[in-house]
């Protein structure tokens, strides 16, 4: 029974795999159907603008190269999907894996089909991120997390270099479109050529695991084996190869390009092949042999002209087929025996005969033996490099090492002797399908070169192909035989060299680790500069801004003119002095109330300055806001315990002399910096009225508004005002959230307890003598509401009559705001003042009773809806957003105009009134205003 259910489960998992593979195969077939078109036409392009300002288009570019890579991605992807259905034991793992794998497949396809270098880069980064997620698939394992992070840092860092390189290249060629960059033949002569080529090469080399970035690839082997087979051998690591191939016609064929690619490629090839032999973990060995193959590909792209192109394309195909197959075989070995350590494996052929055949086929292809595709690939490689003896030597050496590796994989693991048979975990037969297809591909591709391989690479090769399985006895074949014989000899001597200890070279992983720990040390150092006191951060921020401003301003202080030419200027100077004096007084006063009043006086003086400009609108708003602000501050003062305030105030006068001097110096430095900036700004303003302001004055009549400031606020910059009003109402909501909500919670017994707990915890954490508030006063207030000290019969009558009067004034402001000072905002503040007076005089409870009809939330919501609706309405009748609509045909008495501006102003009025009422309600809530 149990067995059956297990069987059932594994069957159903496999079904998902087959279904998904079916979908991927359909895509594969669809892409394949483009092959004839591409062979005839060369390129298919599709372009949709995305962010045109950045040159970013969502464009697709399909040519022979993209098609080949796309087919590899989809074809290998399909068999990997089938394999994964058998590989994972847990359905949850499988589902997660499929999600990531499909995401990767999409990103990889986007990469090879991208028609714009920026979209290519985005896809490039996506593959890095998905690779990170797949490597850390078993995130509970330390080595998985470390390997994933290492891979991400290396490929991500390379990606940054690539981004800079691509942008530089795009800028140099004048377009971010791949097709235009490719067709630009002058890039090689551009002064930035070496810079962007170097950066692009760094990106490609890090992605394709070239020396010295190669070490991330073996570290990435903690990924589930299907992911290793797919990402880290067949597709993702080939992204760098793809980009190199893509750009080789444009950037290649220079001494720099050839030297860089040939030297790095060959070095990587040799290192990879040699290091592979030192590995005991099968997957690590395969990873190093992948590095070696990638090195060969890079070296081929570095050849002059298109000499290496054919060999590179065959190599990509051959490598993808045999390496993915071998990875899948290793996965199955791991799955059945529970180990991938070479020392513990042997003689598996008897127990897993099917796997032995597949592994032998793929291994022979890797070793480059006929009649498999790997042989063809190696022959073309040797043929392409014929004129370079040093390269030939390195290739033969690496090939010999690779043959040894293949023999170790095939002979030692499957055919070699072993005393006791392995204890095998069941390996499903369906699992064999995927590697069998891939290995079969290696064989078929080798035998039927013209039928299967040639059509795929023909679109990219201009001249005739010389792909043949057997080209007669020539130099490449001789070299091949040397490599095979050498490989077999090394294999035969494996028991001798395995015991050799190589000198300990600094490995990439160690360099990487010391780099990472270095960064951490620097971070620790940087953390020491953080002392957690907000005022120091403030000083640093303000100080740097002031220094920046001063340095910007200092250069523009030439011929500062001091004009002082009218009677009003005397008045202005007096007001400025008064304002500064009042500000200073607000600093020096030892009573908060007096300081607040002095601050208010300073603001009124500035309002007076506005009035003298003459700027009546601004002055009006300044007076109103100053009043509300001062009242707000005074009301707020009453909510803070008088003793506490006195204590805090006294602490100011106990400040040490050094501290005081420090603060004065800081304030002076910042003040001087801002002053210099202001001076230079004032000095450089345009004296000619040819500014945007003149435009505003000229166009105000178009919308029937006489008041230019009002026209700017309501119409020219109408969107700004909508945002401004929204911010204002959000601020009001913020005050409500900060003040009223915690206070209201106190009403319920549970809430009271919770608040008490929080107080106690805060005090416990602090561990000092902060006094605990055991009974918040707010609790008592429902029982006996305090009567405000301002509440005399006279003030009560005043407050009650003031509000209707305020509404009347607000109405005139609204109706005549276009022609006279005042607008919706002023109207809102005026009525808000009336409401404020209510709260000051009557206190919270009575005001709340009396102003029951005034619902701030509805006012804010309705006002905002009105403003936004008014902005959207013109869209409905075919005009632009926020367009001015005038209804002059409706004749109204008393010189009134009905227009969209009026609706707009009304909305602003309602929002502001609601916001101020909300703030007042929130402030007034828990405690009545007391005399100070």
């Amino acid at each position, binding site marked *: 029974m149990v067995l059956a259910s297990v069987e059932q489960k594994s069957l159903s998992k496999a079904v998902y795999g087959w279904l998904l593979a079916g979908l991927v195969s359909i895509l594969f077939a669809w892409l394949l159907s483009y092959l004839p078109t591409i062979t005839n036409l060369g390129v298919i392009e599709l372009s949709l603008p995305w962010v045109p300002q950045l040159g970013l288009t969502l464009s697709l570019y399909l040519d022979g190269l993209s098609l080949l890579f796309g087919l590899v991605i989809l074809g290998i992807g399909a068999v990997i999907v089938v394999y994964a259905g058998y590989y994972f034991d847990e359905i949850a793992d499988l589902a997660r894996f499929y999600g990531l794998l499909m995401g990767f497949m999409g990103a990889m396809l986007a990469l090879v089909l991208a028609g714009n270098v920026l979209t290519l880069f985005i896809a490039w980064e996506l593959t890095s991120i998905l690779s990170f997620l797949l490597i850390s698939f078993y995130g509970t394992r330390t080595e998985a997390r470390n390997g994933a992070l290492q891979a991400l840092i290396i490929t991500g860092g390379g990606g940054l270099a690539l981004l800079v390189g691509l942008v530089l290249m795009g800028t140099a060629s004048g377009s971010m479109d791949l097709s235009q960059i490719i067709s630009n033949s002058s890039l090689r002569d551009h002064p930035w050529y070496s810079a962007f080529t170097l950066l692009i090469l760094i990106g490609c080399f890090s992605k394709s695991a070239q020396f010295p970035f190669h070490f991330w690839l073996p570290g990435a082997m903690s990924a589930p084996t299907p992911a290793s087979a797919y990402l880290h051998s067949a597709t993702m690591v080939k992204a760098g190869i793809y980009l190199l191939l893509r750009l080789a016609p444009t950037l290649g064929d220079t001494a720099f390009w050839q030297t860089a690619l040939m030297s790095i490629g060959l070095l990587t090839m040799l290192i990879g092949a040699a290091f592979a032999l030192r590995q005991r973990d099968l997957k690590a060995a395969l990873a190093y042999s992948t590095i070696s193959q990638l090195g060969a590909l890079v070296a081929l792209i570095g050849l002059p002209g298109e000499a290496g192109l054919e060999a590179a394309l065959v190599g990509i195909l051959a490598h993808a087929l045999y390496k993915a197959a071998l990875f899948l075989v290793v996965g199955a070995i791991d799955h059945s025996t529970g180990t991938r350590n070479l020392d513990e494996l042997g003689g598996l052929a008897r127990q897993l005969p099917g796997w032995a055949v597949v592994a032998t086929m793929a291994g022979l292809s890797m070793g480059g033996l006929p009649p498999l595709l790997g042989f063809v690939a190696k022959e073309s490689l040797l043929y392409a490099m014929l004129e370079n003896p040093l390269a030939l030597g390195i290739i033969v050496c690496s090939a010999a090492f690779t043959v040894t590796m293949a023999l170790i994989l095939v002979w030692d693991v499957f055919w070699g002797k072993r005393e006791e048979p392995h204890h095998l975990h069941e390996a499903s037969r369906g699992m064999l399908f995927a590697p069998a297809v891939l290995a079969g591909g290696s064989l078929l591709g080798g035998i039927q070169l013209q039928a299967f391989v040639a059509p795929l690479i023909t679109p990219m090769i201009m001249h005739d192909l010389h792909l043949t399985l057997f080209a007669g006895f020539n130099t490449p074949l001789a070299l091949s035989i040397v490599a095979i014989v050498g490989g077999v000899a090394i294999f035969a001597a494996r028991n001798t060299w395995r015991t050799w200890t190589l000198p300990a070279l600094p490995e990439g992983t160690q360099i990487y680790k010391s780099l990472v720990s270095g960064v951490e040390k620097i971070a620790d150092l940087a953390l020491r500069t953080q002392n957690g006191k907000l005022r120091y951060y403030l000083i640093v921020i303000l100080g740097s801004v002031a220094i920046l401003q001063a340095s910007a301003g200092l250069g523009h202080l030439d011929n500062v003119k001091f004009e002082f030419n009218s009677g009003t200027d005397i008045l202005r100077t007096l007001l400025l002095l008064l304002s500064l004096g009042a500000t200073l007084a607000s600093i020096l006063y030892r009573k*908060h109330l007096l300081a607040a009043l002095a601050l208010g006086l300073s603001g009124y003086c500035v309002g007076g300055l506005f009035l003298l400009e003459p700027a009546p609108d601004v002055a009006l708003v300044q007076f109103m806001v100053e009043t509300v602000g001062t009242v707000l501050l005074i009301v707020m003062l009453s909510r803070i315990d008088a003793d506490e305030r006195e204590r805090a105030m006294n602490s100011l006068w106990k400040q040490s002399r050094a501290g005081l001097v420090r603060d004065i110096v800081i304030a002076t430095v910042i003040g001087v*910096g801002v002053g210099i900036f202001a001076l230079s700004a004032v000095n450089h303003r345009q004296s000619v009225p040819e500014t*945007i302001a003149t435009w505003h004055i000229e166009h105000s009549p178009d919308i029937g508004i006489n008041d230019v400031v009002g026209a700017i606020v309501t119409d020219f910059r109408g969107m700004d005002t909508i945002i401004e009003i929204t911010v204002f109402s959000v601020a009001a909501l913020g005050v409500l959230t*900060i003040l009223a909500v915690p206070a209201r919670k106190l009403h319920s017994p549970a809430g009271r307890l919770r608040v008490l707990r929080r107080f106690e915890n805060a005090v416990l954490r602090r561990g000092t003598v902060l006094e605990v508030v055991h009974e918040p006063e707010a609790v008592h207030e429902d029982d006996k509401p305090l009567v405000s000290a301002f509440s005399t019969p006279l003030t009560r009558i005043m407050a009650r009559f003031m509000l209707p009067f305020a509404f009347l004034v607000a109405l005139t402001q609204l109706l005549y705001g276009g022609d006279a000072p005042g607008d919706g905002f002023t109207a809102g503040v005026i009525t808000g003042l009336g409401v404020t007076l209510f709260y000051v005089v009557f206190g919270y409870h009575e005001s709340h009773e009396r102003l029951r009809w005034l619902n701030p939330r509805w006012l804010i919501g309705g006002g905002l809806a009105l403003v936004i609706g008014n902005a959207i309405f013109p869209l409905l009748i075919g005009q632009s957003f926020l367009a001015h609509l005038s209804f002059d045909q409706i004749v109204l008495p008393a010189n009134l105009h009905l227009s969209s501006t009026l609706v707009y102003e009304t909305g602003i009025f309602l929002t502001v009134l609601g916001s101020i009422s909300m703030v007042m309600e929130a402030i007034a809530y828990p405690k009545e205003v007391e005399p100070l």
Partner: protein
Amino acid sequence: MNVLFAVATGIMFGLGVFQLLRRDMVKSAMGFYILFTAINLLFFAVGAFNGRVPAYVQAAETAQVSDPLVQALILTAIVISFGTYAILLGLISSSARRYRTADLDTLDHLKG
């Protein structure tokens, strides 16, 4: 005259920073308000031209009007700074009540 405005901006900014750096929360909040005023003064001083009459279309035909653009900017600035100020006062009031202190330095170690 505008030179005087610029100098006054600098002085007021300096005063505001000094006030902002006080330990007393209420005074610190006042410092913010002084900074807002200083910035408005700066806006005001950098207007493209000084006028003799308010910025009204009909008046523009007879005499030089004051720069309307900076006025619109100041209007917006006043509104936003008032909103900020209200939030600031709300924060101060609630933290002063909760932690029973109006001294910023005693608040330094309270987190959460």
